[in-house]
């Protein structure tokens, strides 16, 4: 096996990988909490959300492999691409930091993904539509759970308010990328396979604002938005995450696990 997988990134393969990478990287981040959450009840919740996302990633990688037709498995994609080959948005690779950051990152992403998968239920691609039907329910619950925490942290103590406000400020510049689509993706939108991401943004803002209002938080202005993840230009955090995620496969290459 080559050290880094070369993927034939046709528009649909690339499209699947972008969604799968979002789910895997965010799921991996949540799984880092396991055993260390602020309360045991929340350990259960974070693990459940992580499992939802890892499950979504697996379906999408498997489908990407089928579409690509080169015999690549879910694990080939997950374990044998380096950070330049990963296609996730920058938001999901950001470090967990404190519970406030983790919750805000999850809330902003889930608020997007919930709308996204709802729209994808109507995809002309049957496999993606099926993944969407399952994922939409999962993400709706992630929104429900994280919104409750955003509200409690925002309207809790001075310390929690300060922490969640800081987390919001930190995460916000990464939200623009969620709604970006390049030429390869626009073609899929025209074919009715992909959802038009830009059309989701107003609803996303409305939904997010409603929760932030209740949390006594101020919705940030859209300033400069960070991007690059979709084409493999990541933050420095992703490389470390992948080093860990891929460690065993790279230590003993060519093995079945």
């Amino acid at each position: 096996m080559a050290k880094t997988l070369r993927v034939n990134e046709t528009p649909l393969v690339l499209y699947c990988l972008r969604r799968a990478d979002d789910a895997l990287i965010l799921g991996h981040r949540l799984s880092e909490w396991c055993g260390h959450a602020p309360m045991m009840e929340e350990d259960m919740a974070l693990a459940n959300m992580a499992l939802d996302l890892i499950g979504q990633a697996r379906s999408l990688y498997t489908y990407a492999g089928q579409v690509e037709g080169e015999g690549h498995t879910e694990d080939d994609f997950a374990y044998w691409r380096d950070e330049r080959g990963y296609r996730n948005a920058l938001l999901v690779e950001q470090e967990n930091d404190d519970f406030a950051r983790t919750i805000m990152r999850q809330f902003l992403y889930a608020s997007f993904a919930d709308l996204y998968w709802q729209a994808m239920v109507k995809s002309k691609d049957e496999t993606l539509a099926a993944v969407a039907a399952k994922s939409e329910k999962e993400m709706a619950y992630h929104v429900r759970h994280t919104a409750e925490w955003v509200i409690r942290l925002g309207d809790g103590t001075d310390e929690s308010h300060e922490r969640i406000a800081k987390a919001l400020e930190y995460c916000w510049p990464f939200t623009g990328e969620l709604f970006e689509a390049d030429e390869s993706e626009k073609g899929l939108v025209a074919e009715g396979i992909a959802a038009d991401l830009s059309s989701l943004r107003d609803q996303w803002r409305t939904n997010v604002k409603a929760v932030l209002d209740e949390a006594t938080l101020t919705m940030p202005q859209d300033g400069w938005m960070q991007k690059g993840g979709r084409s493999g230009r990541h933050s420095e955090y992703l490389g470390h995450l992948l080093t860990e995620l891929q460690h065993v496969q790279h230590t003993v290459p060519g093995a079945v696990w």
Partner: protein
Amino acid sequence: MYTQALNNAPETGERQVEDAARMESFQARIDAEERIEPNDWMPAAYRKTLTRQISQHAHSEIVGMLPEGNWITRAPSLRRKAALLAKVQDECGHGLYLYAAAETLGTSREELVDQLLTGKAKYSSIFNYPTLTWADMGAIGWLVDGAAIMNQIPLCRCSYGPYSRAMIRVCKEESFHQRQGYENMVTLSKGNEAQKEMAQDALNRWWWPCLMMFGPPDAASQHSDQSTRWKIKRFSNDELRQKFVDATVPQAQYLGLTLPDPDLKFNEETGHWEYGVIDWEEFKQVIAGNGPCNRDRLAARNKAHAEGAWVREAALAFAEKRRARKAAA
């Protein structure tokens, strides 16, 4: 076992003068296999013994998340990653069921957790060993969970209702844990040389600590049979240990792995596998806090608890605000 430190000393410290008639009818209920429920009268020593045993069991589940949690982010396939995360999450759930059962005896969870964090409470010695390779995830599932099941199945019939009900739930859910561990070992032992080596190395390191999980030998333990009379404990340490060895030897043979015990041999007469001498000094040291990871495990739990304090305070502050707003409206 998960509650091993307790096996040798049921609580007899408080020699309260219990009403003899009540004691007698209590014992009669137990003998009749009735379940004792939270609000029922029970001897103070029964309450104390169970509180300690159930909370130790709960602590073990929660501390037990750490050694396996150490490999979730490094699991070598997405399938294994999901299974391991689900398994470790189950352990947290089991800890929660057990804390809930312990609380019905009158000690709050906060108090019980505090006993763990301050090092006053014990938990299973097995979780004070480090997980050094991916194969440890296989060995733990196969051996540690295998040993735990041996102990937990009889606890489903424990005389205390909430404990027995929690254990029924735990056993039902844990049936996948040992299987996922063994499947992992099968894959490794059928894999390439590096994988086989990894599997054998894990077995070498985990075998003896697993045998220690059952607690001190019957001959050496000060175990009075009070726990047995109260039907909290239904088999002795050595009985369970033997059962575990007998079940595990053929499983190791199937894997083509060697158990690290030159004295292991089958006794045709008894039908049991005889094993070598367990290093009880090592066991004593691990229980006393000198295992390779005791300090790390406690530090990790303390860190999570301390760093979560502001979150818990926020949730309480919000609940209070909401109550006040409702009252004012």
